[in-house]
């Protein structure tokens, strides 16, 4: 494998607290402290003047729809979208068709990943058989087949007893249990946040209390069993408060926020645009501010996209009938930089930490660092470049993004996985 010399970058590595202009060297797919004269001459040179070089971004929450819903996305197209967004590792949710509740499906996914993925893609397995919430999936066998976590994302386990057993059992394998926190009895037919806007629009409301109840349940179960529970896409200010207090007690709780929940609010639904329909729904400005405060003080651990592709014809419907979700991999970095760094004065290395080292640690993966000897997964981006995002010409198979047609600031220039350039100059290599 060839060598790389990334020159004059602002190198940011949260793990070593490095933030300085300098060079990065890669040999045989790993970071090295220098290259010998001869190798240096042969090395591929990347002039990163004015650019940031940081660990490749890591997203623990994406939907790549394969197997079964490949009209929306595939592992191939999804991983290309990820690479274009600066991501070098992603974790796929198991709500495929069939759902990933058995080692055979995981094996199939891993075969496709080996064949088609341009970055590192890890599957998760279901918590329950068929994601139906009735009985435990073969969690140990799923772990052996290679899942990095278990989750019934989208279909929160409603039975408290089953959830208790799931986390207790998964703890034996040191597998994080990721939960989409939603009390379904309170959200029947709900399509947006319950509040002033849903009242005005005549749409069925999804009260934040339905999230808060399950967040509290999960905190209680985590503390009772000692198991690690990861709370997906937190959207409610009360949930942030519950998590903050749980962490003060030392609970093994982690939580994520999405770029869209920290950037957008339910006011945007005034025109019934289905590009603002997702689950959990966009909430109010007070909730949005609470999420940002939660990221600032460590209550919320990471940024995750919940990249959820749907075709145009599926999204182009009456609001009630359109599916939930938006794509996010290609816009995550600029949107997060805009909200956290530009508008809320977060330090850039801290925001990179939210998208690299911390998510790696959360799922017990070694990435997210520029340390010598580590796999050379790198994201090189221009924090100041303005560009017009058009979801139609993006790399995802779907284009359901609320940011399509907007000018974003911050653009990924090069993505490197294990020392290999996979995205550069706007193209997948």
């Amino acid at each position, binding site marked *: 494998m060839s060598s790389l010399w990334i020159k004059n970058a602002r190198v940011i590595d949260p793990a070593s607290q490095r933030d300085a202009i300098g060079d990065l060297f890669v040999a045989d797919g790993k970071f090295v402290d220098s290259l010998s004269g001869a190798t240096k001459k042969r090395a591929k040179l990347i002039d990163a003047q004015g650019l940031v070089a940081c660990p490749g971004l890591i997203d623990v929450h994406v939907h790549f729809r394969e197997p079964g819903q490949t009209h929306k996305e595939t592992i191939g197209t999804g991983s290309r979208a990820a690479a274009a967004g600066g991501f070098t590792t992603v974790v796929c949710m198991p709500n495929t068709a069939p759902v990933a509740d058995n080692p055979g499906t995981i094996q199939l996914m891993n075969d496709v990943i080996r064949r088609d993925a341009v970055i590192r893609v890890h599957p998760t397995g279901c918590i329950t058989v068929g994601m139906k919430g009735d009985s435990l999936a073969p969690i140990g066998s799923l772990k052996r087949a290679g899942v990095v976590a278990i989750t019934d994302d989208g279909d929160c386990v409603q039975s408290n007893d089953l959830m208790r057993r799931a986390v207790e059992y998964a703890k034996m394998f040191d597998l994080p249990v990721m939960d989409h926190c939603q009390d379904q009895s309170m959200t029947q037919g709900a399509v947006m946040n319950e509040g002033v806007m*849903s*009242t005005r629009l005549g*749409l069925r409301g999804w009260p934040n209390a339905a999230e808060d109840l399950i967040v509290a349940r999960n905190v209680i179960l985590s503390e009772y069993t000692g198991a690690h529970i990861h709370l997906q896409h937190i959207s409610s200010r009360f949930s942030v408060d519950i998590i903050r207090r749980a962490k003060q007690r030392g609970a093994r709780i982690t939580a994520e926020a999405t770029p869209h929940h920290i950037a957008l609010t339910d006011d945007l639904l005034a025109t*019934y645009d289905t590009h603002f329909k997702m689950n959990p729904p966009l909430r109010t400005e007070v909730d949005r501010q609470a999420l940002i405060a939660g990221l600032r003080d460590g209550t919320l651990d990471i940024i995750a996209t919940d990249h959820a592709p749907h075709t145009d014809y599926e999204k182009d419907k*009456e*609001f*009630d009938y359109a599916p939930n979700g938006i794509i996010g991999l290609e816009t995550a970095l600029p949107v997060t930089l805009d909200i956290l760094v530009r508008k809320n004065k977060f330090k850039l290395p801290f925001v990179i930490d939210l998208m690299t080292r911390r998510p790696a640690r959360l799922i017990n993966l070694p990435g997210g660092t520029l340390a010598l000897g580590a796999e050379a997964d790198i994201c090189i981006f221009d924090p100041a470049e303005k560009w017009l995002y058009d979801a139609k010409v993006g790399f995802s198979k779907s284009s359901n993004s609320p940011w399509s047609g907007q000018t974003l600031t911050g653009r990924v220039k090069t993505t490197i996985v294990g020392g290999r350039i996979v995205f550069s100059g706007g193209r997948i290599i």
Partner: protein
Amino acid sequence: MPWTRRHLLTIEELSLAEIEQIHATAVAFKSTLTRSVKKVPALRGKTIVNLFLEPSTRTRLAFDMAAKRLSADVISLDGSSSSTTKGETLRDTAQNLQALQADMIVIRHAAAGSPLYLSRILNIPVINAGDGAHEHPTQGLLDTFTMKERLGCLRGRKVVILGDILFSRVARSNIHALTKMGAAVTLVGPSTLVPQWFTAMGVRVSHDLRGALADAEVVMLLRIQHERQAAGLFPSIGEYTSMFGLNKTRASWLNPKAIIMHPGPINRGVEIDSELADGDRSVILQQVTNGIAVRMAVLYLCAGGQPENVTPAPATETSRPAGAE
């Protein structure tokens, strides 16, 4: 001021002047309703499609009748007979209707926001005949038209809307119309069906029936549906009636000149005593009649007619179409 809107999607987006233009146009059309020859030639040669994807009796009949009185050709399509049952999308259904050279679509749909969605797809006017729990603009227009007929100017008038507000498009359209017209609106009903969120729309929310009805000049009742009880929103129809049903005693708290309204269909003995529904103060059937005049006005204006050109001459072979430029 000329009328410029092609669609009628919500009352929320209308100005007070536009509401008054529709009302004034409806006054002119109302005078034609009682003549022996009831047709006017205003929309002769136009085809209006009533796309009713949710059941309706009153609204559909009134739109049908209004279009025919304007000499338009009317085609009615309902949910069970349309291709939507075969999985055709609303977009495709509507585009087909446009390709069939329909001049206007009147849509009733269970999904809130669907008329707005259609208006963005189609080049022809779209009239909202009720979208989910969102709006029912022609109902709000005919209700305020009826109130004005009986009470005159609505500024400062006390209006109570009583019942299942949460799921009611009629309530929302009336709230927008009444607040624009300066009326003082109070919403009353069980707290589960009248959440506090509504106060953001410029109205009062109360669960004290007596206090709210005291000296009110209009009480508008909304139908109580059994499904809401099944969903746990209130304990029983019996309890609802005992707490919030309008009976003679409660009606006596109203202003002596007060009128009683209901958009229908009514549940006698549930939200209103039969005696009151049929009594002197009830304007329930006037609402139905006014519904034709108001919908004639809406169809006429959105088809490009101007309020000052309404010449309610009977349709004859030789008469010039009203509003013809």
